[in-house]
């Protein structure tokens, strides 16, 4: 059963990526040099959290400031944000900084509705 879209090159993927084998995560590995910020995929969701966790651990292990670019995020869920909460908390506990290099409206809104704005560093805790 062939789907019409199967042969096409996936360019912009509006909507969820699902288990089409997390190409974004692999793309991240190839595209982002260790020095640059970790670029979050368009679909920051449960399908990619395992791969993302590995990348996050690499960043932590590197000991440098953890920089995250969330400007490409078009959908996010609890699994994805939970991972970032853990990453940020671990980074701060290590004494390394955690910085956002770009956030998308969806990322902010989802963080807000889940009550994670402060935990993610979107707003300053008072």
């Amino acid at each position, binding site marked *: 059963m062939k789907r019409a879209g199967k042969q096409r090159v996936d360019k912009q993927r*509006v*909507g969820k990526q699902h*288990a089409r084998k997390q190409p974004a995560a692999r793309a991240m590995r190839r595209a982002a040099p260790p020095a640059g910020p970790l670029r979050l995929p368009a679909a920051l969701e449960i399908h990619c959290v395992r791969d993302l966790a590995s990348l996050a651990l690499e960043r932590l292990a590197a000991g440098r400031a953890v920089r995250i670019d969330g400007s490409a995020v078009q959908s996010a869920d609890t699994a994805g944000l939970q991972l970032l909460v853990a990453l940020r908390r671990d980074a701060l506990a290590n004494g390394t900084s955690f910085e956002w290099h770009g956030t998308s409206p969806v990322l902010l809104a989802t963080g807000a509705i889940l009550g994670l704005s402060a935990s993610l560093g979107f707003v300053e805790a008072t």
Partner: protein
Amino acid sequence: MSRVILTVDDSPSMRQMVSFTLRGAGYEVVQASDGVQAIEYARNNPVDLVLTDVNMPGMDGLTLVRELRGLPNCRLTPMLVLTTESSQDKRAIGKQAGATGWILKPFNPEQLLATIARVL
């Protein structure tokens, strides 16, 4: 690219109703008349949501959900079961099988769309 919904039901009229309703809302629909066909399709093709009747001859819907969850590319796919049972027990069994949720039959097209929107 539109989302693909795999609908499984041994009743052709139900499949047709579901298919027409969902296609009208922009989803792509693949029909299977039993669990075996559904697994065959899902094994090798991307599926964004599975909609399956519970009461089917051969493989019932809950067994199908369990089987699909075992497929590597369906492990995290949302799955809804269509059932007439409203008792607590059946729901618990649905959850045990790994379903995301259920839709009570009979339902009309509006209810179907609204429920799918809760998942996709």
